[in-house]
């Protein structure tokens, strides 16, 4: 009897602690979201700017005071963020898929021994180091190769970000491929197909929804990264003419000016609006991932 009570106590205690911690996390997430909305909407409520101006104008001269009257067009940062992130995706995805295929189908032994640990190391490197290496190696190299006065550019940002999101896309893709029903492989081989025919026509199509999830996760990571990008993008207040031009993006702008603006002023609130936009975009990414995952389930 006592034993039973003890058991119940333990059971309930464990369950209560877990539930409590869960509730705390939910509350924290909700408060952060609420806070971002509260701060981010100031631009539109307190300082009377239109959402249209914020999203589509490139005139960025917010007033660092409480009277307002500046310009809060964030289009350059938004375009900068989009360009760099998609460029990073474009560079990283082929390498990631190729590595994932190599690790799962071509040489699992070599893959597990060499590539997997290497990817682990990639994940562990702090972003300031990526940025620093980019600044020291990549930026001069781009200047040299393309014969430019300096190499700060969309391309530099894209490459640095590609390195940073490569492990994410790769490891999610490896999981997706390992989840492909082994029966498909046996069925394919038994029909006299080659390994590549199986990989192209059955394995990759079956793993597509999982791989896409990895791609979106990578995109989300690319979108949110500030430090490394800020170091190599050039922080130029212009739209880039091409991928070799310098520009700026949302995270870099927030990071560089958040400490230089008065709390609650128009400038500061405009930065909060960009933070809110980043949050909304990441919600959209999560939504897309959910939809893809659901589609993937339906196919199965």
């Amino acid at each position, binding site marked *: 009897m006592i034993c039973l009570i003890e058991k119940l106590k333990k059971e309930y205690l464990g369950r209560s602690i877990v539930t409590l911690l869960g509730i705390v996390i939910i509350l924290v997430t909700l408060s952060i979201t609420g806070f971002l909305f509260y701060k981010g909407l100031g631009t539109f409520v307190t300082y009377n700017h239109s959402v249209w101006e914020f999203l589509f104008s490139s005139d960025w001269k917010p007033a660092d005071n409480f009277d307002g009257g500046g310009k809060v067009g964030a289009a350059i940062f938004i375009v900068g963020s989009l360009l760099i992130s998609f460029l990073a995706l474009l560079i990283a995805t082929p390498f990631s898929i190729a590595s994932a295929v190599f690790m799962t189908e071509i040489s699992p032994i070599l893959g597990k021994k060499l590539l997997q640990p290497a990817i682990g190391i990639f994940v562990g490197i702090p972003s300031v180091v990526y940025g620093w290496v980019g600044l020291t190696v990549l930026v001069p190299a781009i200047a040299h190769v393309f014969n430019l006065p300096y190499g700060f550019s969309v391309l530099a940002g894209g490459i640095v970000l590609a390195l940073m999101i490569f492990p994410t896309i790769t490891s999610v893709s490896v999981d997706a491929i390992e989840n492909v029903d082994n029966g498909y492989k*046996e069925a394919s081989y*038994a*029909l006299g197909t080659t390994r590549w025919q199986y990989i192209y026509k059955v394995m990759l199509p079956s793993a597509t929804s999982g791989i896409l999830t990895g791609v979106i996760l990578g995109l989300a990571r690319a979108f949110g990264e500030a430090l490394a990008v800020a170091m190599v993008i050039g922080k130029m207040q212009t739209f880039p003419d091409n991928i070799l031009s310098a520009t700026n993006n949302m995270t870099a702008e927030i990071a560089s000016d958040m400490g230089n603006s008065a709390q609650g002023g128009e400038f500061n609130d405009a930065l909060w609006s960009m933070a809110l936009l980043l949050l909304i975009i990441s919600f959209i990414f999560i939504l897309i991932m959910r939809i893809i995952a659901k589609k993937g389930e339906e196919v199965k």
Partner: protein
Amino acid sequence: MNKKIKFNTKNLDLYYGDFQALKSINLEIYEKEVTAFIGPSGCGKSTFLRCLNRMNDLIDSVKIEGEIIFEGQDINGDIDVINLRTRVGMVFQKPNPFPMSIYENIAYGPKCQGVKDKTQLDTLVKESLVKAALWEEVKDRLNKSALGLSGGQQQRLCIARAIAMQPEVILMDEPTSALDPIATAKIEDLMSKLKKDYTIIIVTHSMQQAGRISDKTAFFLMGEVVEFNETPVIFTNPADKRTEDYITGRFG
């Protein structure tokens, strides 16, 4: 009746690492017959079946000694495995259609062999489905996902998929063990029709099934073939005490 020998193994040993799963197997498989492998599970039936189309190549630890003569050629040697697998098809225990349309499932094998002509593929798909007794049920939804079919239909689709390669031999590893009795009856019925054109080798854990559909039966026990003979002989007058014990249900 003097039938041709299709497969013929000589002192076939197979090891998974240090574990010997097949011990000196000597078997003759005759053309256009149904040969059944029976025996308790874990006795090497699947392992042996997978030797015949070199599916064990997929498992790193496997080591094979002895000969497997297929149409006069030892397939354990340095052969064109792709070619072998197009001639020796396989149907698995769990129906495993690809996550594609019914049409694409069947056209997949021929397409991988380089068949591109649409009309030729159409004909092949239809003929294979007709032979697998599935055409009537799916002719209106060839472009729908194969995963929407019932288990029994999926397994007949897998048979159609194997037939589309125009193989000489079809290997079946407990093809009805995941199916209900009605679906099972349909597949057994199909097998007796298919043996006119193909050599069929089937692993089954159901002695009744072996009795109903096979011409010859091999009884496997602990990696050895204890007895191999005409099916009626195995079931009514087995030579080995262990075979008799097994078929009378005294063990296994």
